[in-house]
């Protein structure tokens, strides 16, 4: 029957997740011996019809990264779902909606107009926007429709496992594929990383005091900070406590705070709300005036707390007044 087939595809993505697969380095050779890659647009020339030709369930696992923004991405995701035994949401865009999910703070037309009409580098006098159908003197060409909002993968198809991260560290991908092939799979829906927050393995954990009390949140450009001490204790917003661990604390190693790309922990239903809650608890004030002053020193809380998880959050995006 030949080697088990796996497919990799990218929806509304940046290619970072593809790079993280290439980053498997030597391991990619062991993976390639074990499986046959039947679809991987960034590196292989297989076409959509090649997937269609595979019998349903013929693909052992599809690693789909990127959020769902275009109709085509939804279509191919559904096609792969149909063809695959397991679908793994690969990377924070598929897992949570990712940074591209921030577009849900704006209406669809505003997003298109900004890019095609308003940005200084565009010359588009006629204000042409991409159209789903274009007829050039009899020649019909089609373009995928642009959805109203960005969705995470599991809001479009049924997802079996999640590999979190932006991008996911290569070891997580390898573990996922290997455990898949060796049949030692955790229960459906598991996020294949740590079950505890980043603080558990953070190199700065020892320096974190039992009680943190902050008079003002500092932005990274307005302060110097001690690279050995916990960011929060120095008034710098770090989402480590509210973010799943397993990334190897790469941002902390680079002396920058965690932005929450691994998403929230199992029993948390909204990463943004929990960020607001735990950061509020370190505000050192009792007078309402002082509290609002300190709270105001958090820049763009919505954008910061939902940096990677807006589409999969409870409210999913800006509340549209006119919607039906």
């Amino acid at each position, binding site marked *: 029957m030949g080697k088990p087939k796996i497919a990799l595809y990218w929806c509304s993505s940046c290619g970072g997740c593809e790079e993280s697969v290439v980053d498997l380095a030597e391991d990619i*050779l062991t993976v390639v011996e074990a499986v046959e890659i039947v679809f991987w647009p960034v590196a292989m020339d297989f076409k959509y019809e090649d997937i269609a030709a595979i019998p349903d369930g013929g693909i052992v696992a599809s690693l789909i990264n990127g959020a769902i923004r275009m109709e085509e991405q939804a279509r191919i995701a559904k096609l792969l779902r149909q063809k695959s035994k397991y679908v793994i949401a690969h990377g924070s865009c598929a897992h949570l909606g990712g*940074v591209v999910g921030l577009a849900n703070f704006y209406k669809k037309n505003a997003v298109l107009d900004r890019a095609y009409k308003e940005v200084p580098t565009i010359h588009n006098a006629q204000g042409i926007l991409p159209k789903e159908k274009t007829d050039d003197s009899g020649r019909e060409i089609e373009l995928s429709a642009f959805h109203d909002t960005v969705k995470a993968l599991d809001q479009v198809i049924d997802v079996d496992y999640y590999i979190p991260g932006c991008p996911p560290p290569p070891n997580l991908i390898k573990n996922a594929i290997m455990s898949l092939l060796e049949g030692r799979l955790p229960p459906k829906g598991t996020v294949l990383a740590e079950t505890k927050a980043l603080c558990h393995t953070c190199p700065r954990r020892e320096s974190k005091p039992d009680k943190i009390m902050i008079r003002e949140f500092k932005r990274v450009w307005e302060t110097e900070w001690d690279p050995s001490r916990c960011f929060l204790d120095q008034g710098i917003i770090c989402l480590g406590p509210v973010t799943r661990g397993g990334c190897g604390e790469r941002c902390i190693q680079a002396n920058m705070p965690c932005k929450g790309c691994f998403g929230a922990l199992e029993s948390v239903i909204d990463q943004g709300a929990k960020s607001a809650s735990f950061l509020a608890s370190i505000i050192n004030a009792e007078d309402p005036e002082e509290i609002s002053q300190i709270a105001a020193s958090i820049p763009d809380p919505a954008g910061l707390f939902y940096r990677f998880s807006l589409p999969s959050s409870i409210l999913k995006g800006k509340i549209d007044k006119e919607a039906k």
Partner: protein
Amino acid sequence: MSKHITIDPITRLEGHGKIDIFLDEKGSVERAYFQVPEFRGFEKFSEGRACEEMPTLTQKICGVCPTAHHIASSKTLDALFNVNPPEAAKKIRELMFNAFMFEDHMLHFYVLGGPDFVVGPDAPKAERNILGVIGKVGVDIGKKVIDMRNRVRGVNATISGSSLYPVCGLPGGISKPLTAEDITSINEIIVPGLVKVSTIDEKGVSGVEEYSGTFLQQLITGLLCPPEALGMGKGSTEATASVRQMLYERMIRTFQFRIANMVRQEVINKILLKNGFEANIVKMKFNSVTDADEAVKAKWLGDLLRGYDPKRGEEKPFTIDEVRAMFGYGPKETGHKEEVPSEQTEEPNVEEEEENENREEPSQPDNPV
């Protein structure tokens, strides 16, 4: 009516794409269209974000070259805050950029573009990829390349925390200095690495000659694909005009870069080695071109582009030997040439080659045509 061929999706590049080709009755290409079925809207959803978040947000435009965007965005923050980063920070950013350039080229050559050359454009679909390349050049060479790229990515991991998404960009510099150990670990990668790559070239790995040959082939075929495919056809709107201008510009610079590179390898290094110097100590740079030169070159390139030589009259693409002759090389069969066409090379002035590359790769336009 015309036959309609669709290539969907186009593959082995970063980003989504779809090509529709319409053939006329005779079977030759009537019109071809290239479309990008992906749009995310960074321009809009960056509004409202804290400025210090931008380096790590803009970089998500492309997962293959995030370092470029990250550094560009960091420099924008420098301008916004009107600060001048310390020398060390600038040097580290430069090192980061070059390490990224190096391993990105390796990605392009071995994974994305390479298969067309090494395995050949008409190889079967299943082989025309990195695995095919490894099959051709042999697993140990494959491993060396994979190891080499991975270790150079390690350089960026040491500097900025992540081999893929740097996070260290700050207005006025970067977030982490290079410690002594960082520097030694980077040197351990870079110094032997460079020698290693040139040794691959020098030792004449079987495919290299082949490669330089096919490289020329790509040079020609690449240049000769019909203008319409590059969106330069009739009736193109102003938008495509600017795209055409930009592609044209890039064509010229790419051409200059490759010529410089080839001349350095084939001509200058040989002279240097013969006279006991080390290879690669001379850098090539095209001196600034006056408008007149530009026009001559543009015309010459345009003719080359249209695939015919006024003298030869037909529309047939050049053979490899004809192009080699243009550069004063003998036909391919005699292998490498003995005598050195000394009188032909004028003395190009020498300057940092990287200068060239910075201008070469404008970030890919993010809007479908």
